[in-house]
Each structure stands twice: as C-alpha cells, then as structure tokens.
C-alpha cells in the first residue's frame, strides 16, 4: 500500500486510544465504569503477561494478540496501542511546531548494545529477583504514573479554576476538588522519566522507544520476521532522502534502500512524504539485508544532565497537603507500632502483591477516597511507588471495590463488593494511653462512630464517659477509625496490616430491645 490513508488511520486511531487513556486516568468523578477500563487495558503488553502468569488462563491473553499482531504487521503496537508511544508522538509534534523550521531526523545508527543490554537485564532481573525493572520500564506503567502524578493534578487544577470562577457567581455546579500530593520521594522516578522521555521525544522522536524501552526492543526482535513491513522500491526511488528526514525512528537508510524493522514503529509518515510513491507497506519479497551492528552513540552526557535536572526539579516539587489536622491540648505519647503496611484489598498477601504490581498507579488515581498512596519505604525497595493504604491521609470506603476492578496485572484480584466487605486487610489496635477519653477525660468516640462493622465500640469508663474497645474478628482494616482519631502526633487507634489477608467474621446481628412506640414518651 502506498496510500496516505495508512498514516491518517494511524493518527486517528492512536489519538482515540490516547484520549481514552487520558480520560481513564484523569477521571476524578469516577464516571467510567471499570469494565470499560478493563477493555482498554487488555492489549497492554506487560500487564497482560503478568496477569497471564498470575491467572494461568487465556482470559488474560492480550499479549498473545500483541505478539501475533507484531508477527503480522511489525511494531504497530508502539504506534497504535502504547499510550507512552502515542504520547511521545504528540510531544514530537509539539516539538516540531515550536522549533519552527522543518523537523529533520535523518538516519542514525541503532543503539544496539544499550537496548539489548536493557532488555536482557530486565528479563534477568524479573526472572531472578523480582519486578523491579518492569516497574521502572514498562511503558504503560510509566504513562500511568505520568498521568497520576502530573496529568490528573493538572486536570484538577483546571477544574478548581473553573470552580472558583463559578463560585464567584454563587454557582456550585462545578465542585472544588482538593488536589493532594504524594510523599515527595515518590516523585523522583516519575520526574526523572518524564524529563527523559519528554526531552528525548521533544528533540529526537522515538529515540526512547528504540534505545531504552524493553517492550519496544522485544517487539523489534519479533518484527524481524514480520509479514508486513515498510519497503522502498529501488526502481522508482530517487534517493531524495525526504523519508529519512521525516522518520521519527531515524531508521530509514535511504542510500541503501533499507528500513531497520527492529526500530520502525509503522507510523507511515514516510509513505505519505515520498513524492515518487516509492515507499509502500506490504509483504516483503525476500532478499532482506542484514543490519549493520554498530557501537552505541554516546548519549551518556545527556543522561547525566537529565539526572542533574531531576535534582533541581525534585526540590521544586512540594507536597500540597495543608495542615488541617485537629489539635488537642495534650500531645499523644505512644508511638503507633505497625508490624506490616496495609496493602489494598484484592492483594491476597503482601508477598504476592509486591511481586505482581508494576506501579502503574491506575488504582491510585481511581480510588475515590485517595487512601491509596505510592509507597516510599513501606514495602521496601521492591514496592517503591506501589500503592499502600495511608490511613493518615484517608480511609477505605466500605462500599467501594474500584481498585480491585481496574488492576491490569492481577496484583489486585477482582473482589465482589460483598466479598470485599469481609476481606480483612489489617486489624485494629487501640492505644488507650493516647485516647482523648483517658488523657482529657472528655467524650470523643470518633473512631467508633466511623467504624462500618462496629469492630470498634464504646464501653463504660469513668462517670458518664465511654471509651473504645475493639473486636478484631469483625474488623476489616478499612482504617476509618485511624483516620478519624483526632490525637496528635500519634493516633490512639490504628490498623496493623495483615501480611496475608484474612476473612473477617460477619458483624453480629441482634434485634433491638426498643420497640415501636404507641404513645409519646413526653
């Protein structure tokens, strides 16, 4: 095919995909039902493989589709389905517009050693030690973090700007949504990658995809035997070089009529630009030239500069949390002693969760209560940026199971709402010596009031006072008590994580002694 239709179709399709991804991640009103999110995420390569390994079922077979697609069409995944790839195309375009003169890419030698080393190290680390490298380098997860850490707050900022203007006229139809930051350390990696991917795509097109991304490199290997590919007709080609100048992957060696299929992402820009219609997309007719192996061009200097930039930027990023916590006159004295962090419902156990989560942060952005926060030290190194329940920030809504529904890697297994309400992710612990009722001798009960199962209840204390008591059997570890507890700096009640999630007992149901009145009691 030599028609420019291919390029138009690519742009339209990928724009749709990117818009869908942006909507899903920026959806602060929880408007998109979880099943549609699932459809969108099925073909994401790394999450799909992880899900397949976990479920051992063909239900999670999106990656097989991607493999077949690559065998048939080459690296179309990178241009049509990968949100990070599409996002880079957008960045390149903006970059081209800003640097007014025509963007010239031109043929470059591949970074062969670098890219295959990254792929090999990623595979080795993943198979031997754990998920570290995939968390860092899975393109979908990188995109997810960009949206969660930067994209969504930007959308919320816009919403709040509009809300403020409406509010000036007494109109409440656009509710103000507080923007909440994460722990500062959690930003380091997303900021680093944002600078890296952003700058590379801004200046060099798809260099990140062809130098760093392990998925790109892997699919590139498969593309070597793909059926359909870009080819140059040696008879009509005038070697004008426009195709090479236009190629985001810098992979067209027009002097030798060669296209490096391991780097070509099938964007079809070359087909459209060729004045002789010498470039087409179709079945290759044998005599495939072997690619030359070259040394990796030194971009180390660039990378070191990016790292320097990162340090500057991370200092600038500030947590937006306002100090709104209440202030009792006495400070609490006993430190909360958490044995384990609390991992989200559906995780099953800390161990299996830490192994499977790539920190794409979709659950973090989907959580309507903002209780899921990126971990910094809570899980150790393996769980850096993975979601952890932070009960000082918020609590887990009893009537909600969204995080378990959206997870694409099966790190959080789907839980029906009724099952979630009986899944014990942690157990309540009461520290009497911190409690207002004991220290101030006044009524409080904020914890018990918040408890959806009455695992925290009040028993008589001194005089007319009542003080909390706990029943761990029916506690599900939602953390509402910990969140509501007004003591500072330490809470008087907290949830200690279950390393292996357990089943909570159903709350007891007893008929009340009070009956319907027939006369007014006054």
């Amino acid at each position, binding site marked *: 095919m030599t028609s420019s239709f291919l390029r138009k179709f690519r742009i339209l399709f990928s724009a749709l995909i990117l818009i869908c991804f942006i909507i899903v991640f920026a959806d602060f*009103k*929880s408007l998109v039902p979880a099943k549609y999110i699932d459809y969108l995420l099925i073909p994401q390569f790394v999450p799909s493989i992880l899900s397949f390994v976990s479920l051992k079922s063909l239900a999670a077979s999106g990656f097989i589709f991607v493999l077949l697609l690559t065998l048939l069409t080459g690296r179309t995944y990178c241009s049509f389905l990968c949100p990070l790839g599409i996002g880079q195309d957008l960045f390149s375009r903006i970059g081209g517009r800003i640097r007014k003169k025509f963007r010239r890419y031109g043929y470059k030698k591949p970074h062969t050693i670098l890219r295959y080393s990254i792929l090999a190290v990623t595979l080795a680390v993943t198979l031997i030690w754990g998920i570290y490298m995939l968390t860092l380098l899975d393109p979908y997860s990188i995109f997810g973090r960009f949206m969660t850490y930067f994209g969504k707050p930007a959308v919320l900022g816009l919403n*709040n700007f509009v809300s*403020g203007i409406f*509010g000036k006229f*007494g109109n*409440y139809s656009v*509710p*103000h*949504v*507080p923007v909440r930051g994460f722990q500062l350390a959690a930003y380091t990696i997303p900021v680093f990658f944002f600078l890296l991917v952003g700058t590379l795509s801004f200046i060099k097109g798809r260099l990140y995809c062809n130098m760093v991304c392990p998925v790109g490199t892997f699919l590139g290997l498969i593309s070597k035997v793909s059926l359909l590919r870009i080819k140059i007709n040696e008879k009509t080609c005038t070697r004008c070089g426009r195709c090479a100048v236009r190629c985001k992957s810098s992979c067209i060696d027009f002097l030798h009529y060669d296209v490096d299929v391991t780097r070509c992402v099938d964007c079809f820009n070359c087909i459209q630009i060729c004045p002789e219609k010498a470039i087409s997309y179709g079945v290759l007719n044998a005599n495939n030239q072997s690619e030359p192996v070259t040394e990796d061009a030194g971009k180390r200097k660039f990378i070191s500069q990016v790292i320097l930039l990162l340090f500057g930027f991370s200092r600038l990023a500030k947590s937006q949390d*306002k100090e*709104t*916590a*209440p*202030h*009792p*006159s006495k400070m609490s004295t006993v430190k909360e002693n958490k044995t384990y962090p609390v991992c989200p419902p559906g995780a099953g156990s800390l161990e299996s969760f830490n192994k499977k989560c790539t920190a794409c942060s979709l659950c973090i952005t989907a959580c*309507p*209560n903002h209780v899921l926060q990126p971990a910094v030290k809570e899980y150790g190194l393996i769980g850096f940026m993975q979601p952890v329940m932070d009960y000082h920030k918020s609590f887990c*809504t*009893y*009537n*909600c199971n969204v995080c378990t529904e959206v997870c694409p890697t099966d790190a959080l297994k789907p839980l029906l709402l009724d099952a979630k309400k009986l899944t014990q992710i942690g157990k309540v612990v009461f520290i009497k010596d911190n409690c*207002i009722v004991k220290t*101030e001798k*006044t*009524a*409080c*009960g*904020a914890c*018990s*009031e*918040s*408890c*959806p*199962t*009455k695992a925290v*209840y*009040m028993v008589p204390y001194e005089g*007319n006072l*009542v003080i909390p008591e706990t029943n761990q059997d029916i506690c599900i570890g939602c953390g509402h008590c910990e969140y*509501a507890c*007004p*003591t500072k700096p330490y809470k008087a009640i907290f949830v200690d994580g279950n390393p292996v999630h357990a089943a909570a007992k159903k*709350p007891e*149901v*007893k*008929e*009340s002694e*009070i*009956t*319907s*009145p027939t006369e*007014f*009691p*006054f």
Partner: protein
Amino acid sequence: MRRREFFRKSIGAGMAAGAALSFGSYGKLLGSETPASAKYDLVAIMGGTPEAMFDLGIQELGGMEAFVKKGQKVIVKPNIGWDVVPELAANTNPGLVKRIVEHCFKAGAKEVYVFDHTCDNWVNTYKNSGIEKAAKSAGAKVVPANSENYYQAVSIPGAVKLKSVKVHQLLLEADVFINVPILKDHNSTRMTCCLKNMMGVVWDRGYWHANNLHQCIADYGLYEKKPSLNIVDCYNVMVKHGPQGVSKEDVVQMKSQIITTDWVAGDAAAARMLGVEPERIDYIPIAHKMGLGNMMLDTLNIKRIKM
C-alpha cells in the same frame, strides 16, 4: 404569656454567670426569627408518612410561610453523613427533605440549598442516601461541602471551647436556616439530633472530638446563625450501633416527627424517644444552662398529634 414563663423557668433552672452573655443572642433569636403566630413550642406527630406528618405539623406552627418569606434564600440541612441506603436510617428520610423543600418554595423562597459535610465519600453519600435526587426533584440546589474552600472562619462569642469555627459559606449568605436531623443512637454522645447535626456545617469536626465534644456541641449553639426551625425525623430510628449502623436490626420504625423552634427542647424530646432521660446526654443540660433553649419538657406547650 407562655414565652415569659419559659424565660423565667430557664433562668430559674440556674444559668451560669458567663451564660448571661449568651442569653442576649438567644433573646434575639426568639425576637427576630420565631413568628408571632406560633402557638406551640413543639409539635409532635405520630402515625403517618414523614411527608404527611410534616404537612400536618407545620400547619400547627402557622405553615412554612411563618418562617420563609418571599424571595428568601433558604438552607435545608439534613443529616447526610453516611454512604448507606435510606432503609438503614443513618441519613434523614429523603421524602421528608423533598417535602420540606416543596413547602419552602410554596412559601415563596427564591432558592433552597441542601448540603452536608459528609463522613463518607460525599459523592456516593449524596447519591446513595437518596437525598440528592429527592431534593433536586423538588427544585433545591444540592451543593458540595467537601472542600475547605467552601468554609469561612467565624467566631462564637461566649463559647467555652469552640471560640471560633469554620462554617460553610452558604450559612453566612442564607436568610433562613432549617435544621432537619434524623434521630439516631450515638456511640459516644448517646444520641445525635438537632444540636449535633451542626457538625455537618463545619469543616473541622476533629477539633470538637479532641476538645470536649459535649461542650463544643453546646458552644456551637451560641453561633448567631441559628436554625429558625428544627424538624426531627423519627420515622425510622437507629436505636443502636449509631450513628452509622450495621444492619436493619439496628432500626426501629417509630413513625414519628418532632417540629420545634427550640432545638434544646427538640433534643430533649428526641432523647425520650430513644428511652434516655435528657439529663443523661451531657450536651443537653449544658446547652440548657447556657440559655440555648429549654430542656424541661413539662414546662413547654407541646401539641401532640396522632394520625
């Protein structure tokens, strides 16, 4: 005559010296906001639907026209605390809220606003309580109270603990404030009703919990923007595991309603509905002594209606 008697008695009940200050604002409340046509201090209705009981009860107080004037901006403040279905009675009956909004508009209200600072996620709570839909269908504006941006700091002269508090900005703008609590058991204060419902118009509830909850509840009663009408929903009453409840077994159908201009009296009557003496609920005697109202039910002119 009744009114004077009431004053004498509440003073006789033993006002603290400092409360004399606050007495002034209470006098102002009665003078400016209670219509002259009201014959009763408290109207109690039993045996009908929440809507029918309200229709009947409000007539005894001179109709909604006695409280809402043409062109006024009205706040109707139900309890929308918890993300549960109406049957569990953790939130005010949505049908009742709707009927009250309708009465406000009939009386000539320009705008009616409904909001609460929810305990659970506000979007889900507004929705699942059924109140958002019910109030909107009657023409009310159901507005958010989820962000500190909506709150403004005010001071409460005469307060013991709660000297200043951030209240929802609509409270400052509105002409009429109607309090529509639901009567519920409460794990720590034993009961939540009229006065405690005010924890939903402030931003920082934690402060109340940490600084003598009962005193703060009573202190808030001194704030000048008082409800001109309190309508207590006692149709389905959560008698244990309050204020959130766990199951339907926590709820008893009482098919009752209390309408009053005196929120301390409303709380006292409501306490009796739960089978608790008003004196046993600390904030009621505190509020009584501060001159916020009259908890002595036998001194009040009460109209009792059975349907």
